[in-house]
Every structure is written in structure tokens, then in C-alpha cells.
């Protein structure tokens, strides 16, 4: 592939902790990806609109508020409604192990919890993007 992978990094929900999102954004940048950073307190609708306008390969969401079971599946749902389900959706943040199977069932491809080396996320994205 001779084009950069485009990734939307977003913070859904109401927590104000964006350190993790910024670390990921920087790591993806250094891995040669184009990162569209959208900042704090995004609604699922905002995330999905940005995903479409930016034509990204990946939506990476960081969430520490505890609302992941509501907000992350909502993004997947809205993407489907817009026929944009060729986008890889991943999540990260403070998410209990017990919730991960539910999120995967809802279409979030992978969840990266605290302590995950950024290289794991980068490799996962490279291996799993759906568009050539």
C-alpha cells in the first residue's frame, strides 16, 4: 500500500482525560499514519460524521468515563446506518475485562487497555484494516 493509513482518534463521552489519546495519536503518527485528532467530549454522531468526511480507515476511541458499553456500540451502529462499515473500529482506555466480549460482539474489533505497548495497537491496525 503506497498511501498512508488514515486514523480518526476521538474521545467519546464526558471524561476529560486525553493523555492516552494523545500518546496513541503520536505513536500512530510516528508509525507513518495520518491521524485526525478530534479532541474531547465527542458525541457518537460527531465521530461518525468526521469518520465519513475524513474517509478514514480506522476509528480509534479512548474512553475513561465508564460509558463505553453505550457509546462505542452506538458509533458502530451509526456507521452501519451510513453504510460506512468498512471502517475498522477499535477502543482503548479504562475498560474492565468483563466488558470486552460484549464490545467485540457489538463490532468493536479490539480493545486496548492500560499498559498495552503502542506497537501492539499499530500492528493490529496494519493487519486488520478492511480497505486495500
Amino acid at each position: 500500500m503506497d498511501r498512508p493509513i488514515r486514523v480518526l482518534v476521538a474521545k467519546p463521552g464526558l471524561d476529560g482525560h486525553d493523555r492516552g489519546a494523545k500518546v496513541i495519536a503520536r505513536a500512530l503518527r510516528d508509525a507513518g499514519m495520518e491521524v485526525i485528532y478530534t479532541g474531547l467530549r465527542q458525541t457518537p454522531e460527531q465521530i461518525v460524521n468526521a469518520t465519513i468526511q475524513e474517509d478514514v480507515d480506522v476509528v480509534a476511541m479512548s474512553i475513561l468515563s465508564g460509558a463505553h458499553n453505550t457509546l462505542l456500540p452506538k458509533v458502530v451502529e451509526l456507521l452501519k446506518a451510513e453504510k460506512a462499515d468498512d471502517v475498522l473500529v477499535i477502543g482503548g482506555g479504562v475498560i474492565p475485562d468483563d466488558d470486552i466480549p460484549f464490545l467485540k460482539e457489538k463490532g468493536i474489533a479490539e480493545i486496548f487497555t492500560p499498559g498495552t505497548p503502542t506497537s501492539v495497537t499499530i500492528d493490529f491496525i496494519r493487519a486488520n484494516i478492511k480497505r486495500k
Partner: protein
Amino acid sequence: MALAERLLQGDKRAAARLISMAENHDPEAVEILKSLYQRTGRAHVIGITGPPGAGKSTLTDKLAKAIRARGKTVGIIAVDPTSPFTGGSILGDRVRMNDLSTDPGVFIRSMGTRGHLGGLSKATQAAVKVLDIYGADYIFIETVGVGQSEVDIAKNADTTLMVMVPGLGDDIQAIKAGIMEIGDVFAVNKADRDGAKRTATEIEMMLDFNKTDWRPPVQMVIAVDNKGVEELLGHIMDHMTHMKETGKLEKKRVLNSKLEIIDLIQENLMRMILDKSSKEDLINNLATEVAARKADPYTAAEMVLKEIK
């Protein structure tokens, strides 16, 4: 349905995909733009430029909202730098435009410069065309934070807005050649800070020497508080009216078209040279010799050109 048709019907995914294709040098994008070129030229294209942190994104957000309040649609192309080392980038202009992202009358696209100098990316012009066809009445192009000589924006916009802030240097900066010459309208943002008036005066003094019949207005604004934004938009509209009434718009578009053709010739020539020769190896070998002072760069360039003929 074909991408071209979907774009004509205002399909935002089609617009988004076509911009990506243009960015990735997909020949199909060029074919589509050829077939739809006559549909372009309708939008008022506004370039927004200025140093990093001047408030270009925030001001774009506020201007876009003011235009939306007048019932018109807006396209925004926001350019940020690409790393020369990894090819990666962080495109962060949307952070200031979050309220706009669910407005169906606004389309925002972030672009990395991908190695292009001059403040824009190579595909910016294609993206402007796509948004014009898509139906945006006004298109903002926000450049990367610029220094002194990134003037490409003036070749792409009908109106260039130069965003300045207080405290960046003395009046000698204002009379240097380069970006200070391309502003059709000036904004002094963060006007509540010390030195804002002085900055505005210095710009005015520089403009006193202009000999054209359009005197660029200098507007004090505080973008975060939405102060001075209506007035600024008024100046931008006035500039367009002036351009139309004096016939300058036509002239400027002829000149810009000429520059675009020349750019495309250069681009195609470079691609031809590098493809046809697949001279990558030859150039790499020559580079080694030139660095070791076994050859000189002038002869090396001549050798590559000779290979192609």
C-alpha cells in the same frame, strides 16, 4: 452508482472518497474531475493563512458559523504538516471545529502536506474542486502555520485572509517580502492582548505603500469570543464584490489557471522522468558518487536527463 453521479447528488461519502483518491494519485480521480470540471468555479474560495497558533482554525470555525447563519453552505479544507521523516501526521484542526461536525451544511476535510512545501498539499486544488461540485457555496482553505514565504494559498483562493497576532516581531517583519504581500484582508486575532493595536498599526503602515485600488482592511478580532467576526466576514464579502466589479476576479482566475497548468506539467514531467527511467537506482548511485566528490551534481542531473530522451 458511479462516484461522479453520487457526487453531483451531494453524497458526502462520494466527496470524501474522491478527495482520498486524488490524494493517493488515483488516475480515476483525475478522469472524474476532468468530466466535472465545468461544474466548478461557483464557490467563493477563501484562503486562511498565518503563523502557527494565530487562531486560524478557531477563526475558520467562527466564520463558517456566520456564513451558515446566512443560510449558505460551507466546505473547509484544513492542511497540517506531514512528518518529513515518517510520512505520518497529526491533523488537529477539527478540534476547534467540533460544533460544525454534525451540521449537514458543512463538510470538513483535514489533509497532510505529504511532502509538499508552500503551505498546502498537492491535492488541495483537487479537494477544492470536489467540494465545489459537491455544492459548497463558500470554501475555506486553511494552510499550515506559515513562516515568511508560503504563498501558494494566493494561487488557490479568490480572497486571502491573513491572520496575525500581536507580539511576533517589529515593524520590519511587516515590510518584508513574502506572505505579508498576499493578504486581501487582515485579521489581528487575540486583540485583547498587549500590543494588538501596535500590530494593527504596523500592518496599516505597510499597506500605506500599496499602489492597488483595493486597500486591504485590517480587522481586530477575538476569535474565541466571536468578537469582530461579522465585521471580518463583511470585509471578505466586500473583497469578492470588488473583484467582480473591477473584473479582477476573471483576471485572477486566468492567472491561477495558468499557474495550475504549469504545476501539473511539472508534476507530470517529474513522474514521467522518474517512472520512465525507473531512475531511482541511477539517481541513488549518482548521489553516492556526488557525495564522495567522484562526480558533481550538475553532470549527474544532465546524465539522468540524457537517459530519458
